[in-house]
């Protein structure tokens, strides 16, 4: 006979003790590793006489950034701001264009038209399986610098744009973008309000909501008004011999990174769009047919809202990938953040703080993007009972 076990078990078998001990051990190891790394950085920097702080941000950058107001005498800090602006220029426009192209191709893959379906499929299967870096390098060296003609014999499709090896010039609004941005915000708010109102009316009276019929003209009206206010001018590029006036110019570098990122990301988005439309339960479509909804009504009210819910998280991931891949602009000479950082390091800025700052900026950018995606996702998520 043994005595009844009433006391605590020995320490090395007590789960409560073990849990704490294990966590302390894990934290200890992590602290040790990080401590060693920081110690090494300090020791190596002291040995080489390189500062570890961020004072270098106030030193003059000593390198120019093409196509900007930036002067080499300005501090590194300003160069980074300019680089961030260039990064955002690619990321924001890239996300918009990749979404448009991706959704078009994705819907094309489900088209009843054999030619469209096949072309979309070939586009996706080819571009999705080629490294984005190869696409960007190809777009720069093979398209922008080689295949595009000299400025004296530039391509001018429909007289709207000018393609040459000096870059691509596309039409742009005169008098700056500010009125259009304001107009866009107003239009968005208006469209949102209208759709709320129409939905409420539909809920109360049972009449058709016709959200689109109200929102689209409102948005068009506001945007046209904004354009009129901004001076009514659309600046179309005009080439005379070897000089182009008007429009807005994409440098070959910008074109390469933008084109590469857009066609690559669009191929992934297309796959997501197709998959999410096909993932909607067949029973939903059948039920909608049984309720005598027409083809477009089935798509508009039953299929698309549900597929949207499935598509948002993976498309958000693609946006994140696009923003991170924008650093590849470095390799084609586009002055985005990573290139500004690596050049300033080459010009004597301390490497460790410079790159940590770069990582930090991208971390913030990624978190902001995924926060935005999460907000959309939460609004769309099913409310489980």
């Amino acid at each position, binding site marked *: 006979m043994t005595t009844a076990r009433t006391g605590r078990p020995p320490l090395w078998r007590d789960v409560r003790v073990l849990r704490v001990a294990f966590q302390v051990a*894990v934290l200890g190891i992590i602290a040790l590793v990080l401590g060693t790394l920081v110690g090494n950085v300090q*020791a190596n920097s002291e040995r080489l006489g390189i500062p570890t702080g961020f004072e270098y941000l106030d030193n003059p950058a000593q390198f120019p950034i093409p196509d900007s107001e930036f002067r080499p005498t300005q501090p590194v800090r300003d160069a980074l701001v300019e680089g961030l602006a260039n990064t955002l220029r690619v990321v924001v426009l890239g996300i918009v264009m990749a979404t448009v192209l991706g959704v078009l191709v994705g819907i094309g893959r489900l088209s009843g038209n054999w030619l469209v379906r096949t072309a979309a499929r070939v586009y996706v299967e080819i571009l999705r399986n080629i490294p984005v870096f190869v696409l960007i390098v190809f777009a720069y060296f093979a398209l922008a610098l080689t295949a595009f003609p000299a400025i004296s014999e530039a391509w001018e499709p429909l007289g709207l744009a000018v393609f040459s090896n000096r870059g691509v010039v596309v039409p742009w609004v005169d008098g700056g973008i500010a009125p259009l941005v304001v107009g866009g915000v107003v239009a968005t708010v208006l469209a949102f309000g209208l759709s709320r109102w129409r939905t409420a009316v539909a809920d109360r009276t049972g009449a058709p909501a016709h959200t689109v019929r109200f929102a689209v003209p409102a948005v068009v009206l506001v945007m046209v008004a904004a354009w009129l206010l901004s001076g009514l001018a659309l600046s179309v590029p005009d080439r005379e011999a070897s000089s182009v006036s008007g429009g807005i110019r994409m440098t070959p570098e910008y074109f390469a990174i933008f084109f590469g990122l857009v066609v690559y990301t669009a191929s992934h988005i297309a796959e997501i769009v197709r998959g999410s439309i096909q993932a909607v339960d067949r029973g939903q479509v059948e039920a909608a047919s049984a309720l005598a909804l027409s083809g477009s009504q089935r798509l508009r009210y039953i299929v698309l809202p549900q597929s949207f819910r499935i598509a948002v998280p993976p498309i958000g991931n693609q946006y994140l990938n696009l923003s991170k*891949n924008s650093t590849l602009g470095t390799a084609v000479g586009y002055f985005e953040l990573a290139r500004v950082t690596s050049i300033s390091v080459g010009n004597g800025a301390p490497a460790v703080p410079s*790159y940590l700052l770069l990582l930090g900026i991208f971390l913030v950018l990624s978190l902001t993007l995924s926060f935005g995606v999460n907000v959309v996702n939460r609004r769309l998520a099913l409310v489980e009972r």
Partner: protein
Amino acid sequence: MSATPSPALVWLRRNLFRSPADGILTVVSAVVVATVLYRTARFVAVTGRWEIIEVNLRLLMVGRFPDIHLPRVSISLAVAAFVGGLVAGVVHRRQVAAGTSAVAHLGTGRRALDLLERFWPVLAGAALLLALSRTTGPWVTVAGALAAGMAGRLIGARLPAVVHPGVVLGAVITPFALVAYLADAVGWDGWGGLMLNVFMAVASIILCFPLGVLAALGRRSTLPAVRWVSTAYIELFRGVPLFVLLLMSGAALGFFVPVDAAPGRVVRAIVVFTLFTGAYMAEIVRGGLQSLPKGQPEAARALGLSPTKVTFLIVLPQALRNVIPAQVGQLISLFKDTTLAGFALGLFELLNVSRSITSQDAFRGQPLLPEVLAFVALLFWIGSYTMARESQRLERKLGVGER
């Protein structure tokens, strides 16, 4: 009334001209498709000058691997093909035994067609390489690899369904042995071309696997400290660009390690790829863990298994099986991302080779980069496309998403 229209007309009507709008769509896209096809065909057959690839085929494939050691590459390929065939044979046999094989009931001809349908890009790529080659080396290599692969497949299918542990051990050790065998001739930093891309991708995916599983388990742990550390690692590495990490490992790694302990460039690249992919792998594994019904670990606990045993015998095997296709997807993007190491670290991988050979004396000043890049893109496409299709096949087979 006209007679019954011919089937071709019916097909055209149904698939291309169902309505006026559909007809316009067809015509417009036909113009676009025809332009693209014409330009591509003209580039491949008329304007493209492919001599640069014939001359530099070896640089593109194996970089500056010395002549006398090239047989090692051929032997390694043959051994890898043999082991691959062996595994495929054993898997086939087990499937036949379990009655889950999709091809066992088909005749030899149909099975050959099935293989052709699955691997035509690889076969076509090998044929293209042979057509471009000016020496006998590639012929010997391809023939050897094919023969070894078939031999392995035949032997594998004759092994007993319950495989001797020695065979399993051999198959697991082979990649490491081959790497040691090749590195014995020339150190990693002397490798190059496609070989280096494949090596970096395979090495990193193998190394990141335990890391990813650990981080995924850690993120779901009940111990807060473990959870925080795992989450911090995952979110940190998923939030920053791979390219910046590679640049940093080139420019700033020297500061983080003691003097004279800085590793070689290939090791740096593999470490970065491993840490980066490990974070993604962790999220994939976490998805697999979450998809597992709660009843599984609960039943295991009820049977009296310890938490460790529940994790390693019940939870992980099922979770990992469910996420194999996603892991293949990760391998594909890793394979494509190995091109970043060329620019960031100056490694002589495929994309870097292609940029450097256009500045050779014989080709300088001629815009030949389009040709070389098209060839490089084709090689990557063959690898990625084949893996993607195999992964879809596996997905259907595992019935992922159907339960």
